[in-house]
């Protein structure tokens, strides 16, 4: 087990392993997306209250979930990097930031597209929308900070501290629907034991969740591979790889 983590922390081993994983993850992601979208858009019945327009939820909710998942994942990896000084953890954090920001942006856009017919407004200053917007600012702040610091090692550590400090906001976003009674509807999927969604809607939803998750891991690994190559461009194995 330890040996595996030890090997994983070496850039070359990671590069090779990620290269093997990416096609599999990508294929699975495509299957999950296609079947999820088909089931969600054509098979699942219309909602009894919201009619057809609820279908945007199959994109909106998974991307909202991903926006928080990516941040939490970044926080854990930042802690690993700060404590054990593992460069690869930082590679993953840095490759994740732009993806997390785009998931957050997608959430805000789909949410506002959904909000217009449902609430009659593109944007409402309620707790969940506002905290999601703050999450976007946190991502952008991280990106701005690491690109402002030239030395990659101190950029990694400074960014890591910022990510960890900002992690305080994640529970605030998560519980915002329960703490404040606002316009945004309460949680549906996570009511443990008794989900208030019918099976015909639940299945495409879960497929979309899987699709988003797989998409993230596929793209983050591709980005991380590029980042590793760039950082290790002076090392022997990269030179050998490109036949110099």
């Amino acid at each position, binding site marked *: 087990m330890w040996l595996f983590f030890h090997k994983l922390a070496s850039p070359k081993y990671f590069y090779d392993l990620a290269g093997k994983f990416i096609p599999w993850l990508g294929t699975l992601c495509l299957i999950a997306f296609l079947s999820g979208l088909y089931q969600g858009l054509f098979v699942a019945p219309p909602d009894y209250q919201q009619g057809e327009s609820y279908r945007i939820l199959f994109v909106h909710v998974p991307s909202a979930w991903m926006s928080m998942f990516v941040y939490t994942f970044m926080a854990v990896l930042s802690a690993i990097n*700060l404590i054990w000084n593992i460069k690869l953890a930082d590679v993953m954090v840095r490759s994740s930031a732009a993806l997390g920001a785009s998931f957050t942006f997608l959430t805000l856009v789909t949410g506002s597209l959904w909000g217009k017919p449902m609430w009659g407004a593109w944007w409402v200053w309620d707790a969940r929308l*506002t905290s999601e917007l*703050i999450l976007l*600012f*946190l991502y*952008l*702040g991280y990106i*701005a*900070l690491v690109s*402002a*610091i030239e030395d990659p090692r*101190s950029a990694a*550590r*400074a960014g890591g*501290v*910022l990510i*960890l*400090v*900002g992690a*305080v*906001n994640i529970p*605030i976003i998560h519980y915002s629907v329960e703490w404040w009674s606002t316009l945004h509807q309460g949680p549906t999927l996570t009511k443990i034991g008794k989900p208030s969604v019918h099976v015909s809607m639940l299945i495409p939803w879960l497929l979309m969740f899987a699709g988003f998750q797989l998409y993230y891991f596929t793209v983050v690994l591709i980005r991380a591979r590029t980042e590793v190559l760039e950082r290790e461009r002076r090392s022997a194995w990269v030179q050998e790889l490109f036949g110099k």
Partner: protein
Amino acid sequence: MNGLFTACSALLKRDLMLAFRHRGELANPLLFFLMIVTLFPLGVSPEAELLRRIAPGVIWIGALLAALFSLESLFRGDFEDGALEQMLLSPHPLSALVLAKVLAHWLVSGLPMLLLAPLLGLLLAMPTTGIQTMEITLALGTPLLSLIGAIGVALTVGLKRGGILLTLLILPLYIPVLIFATNAVTAAAAGLPVEGQFYFLAALLALALTLAPVAIAASLRISVS
């Protein structure tokens, strides 16, 4: 333990003395605070009813921005003349030393704002209960602004143009404080209970008092090395 206390109080005294030697700079954030608040009646409307409603938000946003501007120089001077490196090298825990510095910053920026705020409340036609609640939220909130802000300052102190970046880093972290504080003042004006918001602010303050010094110290080590 005794040595640590001496070191912290020496640092606190030094920072306070430095601040009082530059009395002009001391007044700048306060004037800034006063001017931001003055702009609202001129820019939005001088109507008392409207001003009363937006007053908590206006005063709090003014405090937020004033804190941001006064924070920028928190570690700058020490970084430039090498005092910061001495602090890093000292045998005392850095987190305790930075706590002393943050306390000094709050005493010269947060506390005066606290004293000026009732006057601004009167200017914006706030009712007495609203002003009282606002004072409590400011008393709980301005130390939070100094503590959270210092993390951002510590992260950007090594950079040449840290000013705008600092805004980008800190303001998102300030938003929860702003929300709970203004919510309390609005609730008080409507005659609703406000203990819940006070507890939230107090909890955030306790969290920041214990964790922020560690984060500030870590950030300083990163920035200086």
